[in-house]
């Protein structure tokens, strides 16, 4: 009786579909000027107050950005957070979570702590503007949820952020 040791080599075939780019037999009609429809009345059609869409529509931005390995709230961040504080004063029942993030150029564990530090800095600034801190929770995703996917300074700058998310 014998048993040949069999190496199963799985070969991955990557099929590259060729893009056929033949011109169509008949060209589609040229675009025509479409009449602008009557703008619908804005009442009751927009996002619900307290929803993230409503929040974003009514604040300067839902997020603030940070320099490498930093967590200070600069003048631009202050303006953003002031608009968020105004919203939260207008809608006193809305609660938020601030999500802190880091770029990929840091170790996983440190970046989780750094993201928490950033979220907390944004929370503290909102609290300094009179928002009850019990309405604000924080969470860090470290480098786990990048927004920009490149490995360049512009992408990393977009990822070093604290995002305010309304809690429904």
């Amino acid at each position, binding site marked *: *009786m*014998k*048993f*040949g*040791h069999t190496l199963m080599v799985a070969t991955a075939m990557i099929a590259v579909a060729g893009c056929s780019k033949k011109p169509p037999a008949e060209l589609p009609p040229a675009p025509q000027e479409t009449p602008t429809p009557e703008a619908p009345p804005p009442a009751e059609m927009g996002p619900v107050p307290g929803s993230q869409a409503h929040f974003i529509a009514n604040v300067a931005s839902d997020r603030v950005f940070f320099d490498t390995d930093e*967590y200070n709230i600069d003048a631009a961040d202050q303006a953003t957070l002031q608009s968020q504080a105004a919203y939260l004063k207008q809608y006193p029942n809305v609660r938020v*979570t601030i999500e802190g993030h880091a770029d*990929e*150029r*840091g*170790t*996983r*564990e*440190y970046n*989780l*702590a*750094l993201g*928490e*530090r950033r979220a*907390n*800095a944004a929370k*503290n600034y909102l609290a300094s503007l009179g928002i009850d801190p019990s309405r604000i*929770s*924080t*969470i*860090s*995703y470290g480098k*786990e*949820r*990048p*927004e920009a*996917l*490149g*490995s360049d300074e512009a992408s990393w700058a977009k990822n070093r952020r604290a995002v305010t998310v309304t809690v429904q």
Partner: protein
Amino acid sequence: MKYLALPLTAIASAALAQAPAVAPPLVGQPSGLSVDVTAEAGDDLRIAVPKLATDDVRETVAGTTDALGRQIADVIAADLRGSGLFRPLGPSGIPTVSFAEANAPNFAIWPQTGAEALVSGFVRAGGDGNLTVGCYLYDVNLKSELKRTGFVVAPRDWRRAAHKCADMIYSRLSGESPFFDSRIAYIAETGPKDHRVKRLAIMDSDGANHRFLTNGQNLVLTPRFSPDYKSIVYVSYQQRRPHVFVYDVGTGRQRLVLSTPNQVIAPRFSPDGRTLLFSMSQGGNTDIYKMPAAGGTPVRLTNSPGIDVGGSFSPDGSRIVFESDRSGKQQLYVMNADGSNQQRISFGGGSYATPEWSPRGDLIAYTRLGSFSIGVMSPSGGGERILTHGWQDESPTWSPNGRVIQFFRSTPGRSGTSSVWQVDLTGRNLRKIPTPVDGSDPTWGPLLP
């Protein structure tokens, strides 16, 4: 797992009692054969690994004893080759060894193969359904036995017998402690960079017996084995909060051990398995805590106004190495296990993260920031050596014998991935560990009990 390993000597004599009735040569004769784990350039020892013989071809739940003899030899050869210290010959293309020759090799034929050493052995199926695997190591030129060992093992655990045989050979010829018979836990990764699916997974030290433990629904990070391999502690995000969970490898059940409104980071077991070390953030300040592994009240060990994270116990449990940015940049610190006497040890310029104390106690591995390389230094901070140079290498973990380091390597860009890699303490023998999907956060457990 049911692995019936009798104490080593008892197993060896039991195994040999069943072996062919040939007077065994003296054990442990002096030999010039050795391999040097610290050697700069490889002059790999040529070792013949023929198929293990069987006296009687019997069916087992893992295949026939004849087939297992071949498979065990394959695993032994792969382990030895992977160590970077040996050049195995066989099992194909070299003479076969009969059951009668397993402990009485025909020394006349082996020098012609170029082999300096020979490992032979046998597989027998016992009446109780278990296998007995015998393993003998010979010096071909001196025509002498160097060591023998034997194991009783359930057929489905045949790979462990192979790893234990390879461990015996590695230890006898290198003078180092064994490490092949061990396991790795890591985070298996799939999906795009901004929606990475992460699953807890485990595998043997050679990548075999791979198993996914979680389904990817929740983000899971930073696993660590308990010293007895029964549990894995890790962080899991559930209901948009990070929690510390312990996964029971035997039952597959997950137990919540710490749930707080605070950020929890990087849990790990103490060497005796009784204590969990972790970090927790409050108000932007992250400190290191410990708590009973069974659950209980956390006790704070650090209180600097900065990020203190990533503690790792010394093998005797008396001290902890961790990273802190209290000086402005991430640096390595050592403290007593009760938090007293915190001393910075990294002074090489730049910054350092993710320290891991070697199971031998003699070195600390770390991530060197800036270059994102893996390096080692002594626990007092001297002798810094950089071992790897990737785009981003991170999070070293030690082999059970403190001679090999695994880590994960990331590649840049939108389609960047992570994979598990391994390097010897010498900086040699760098290689990627095969995993079914991408991988990160490897953690190497101790030698299997």
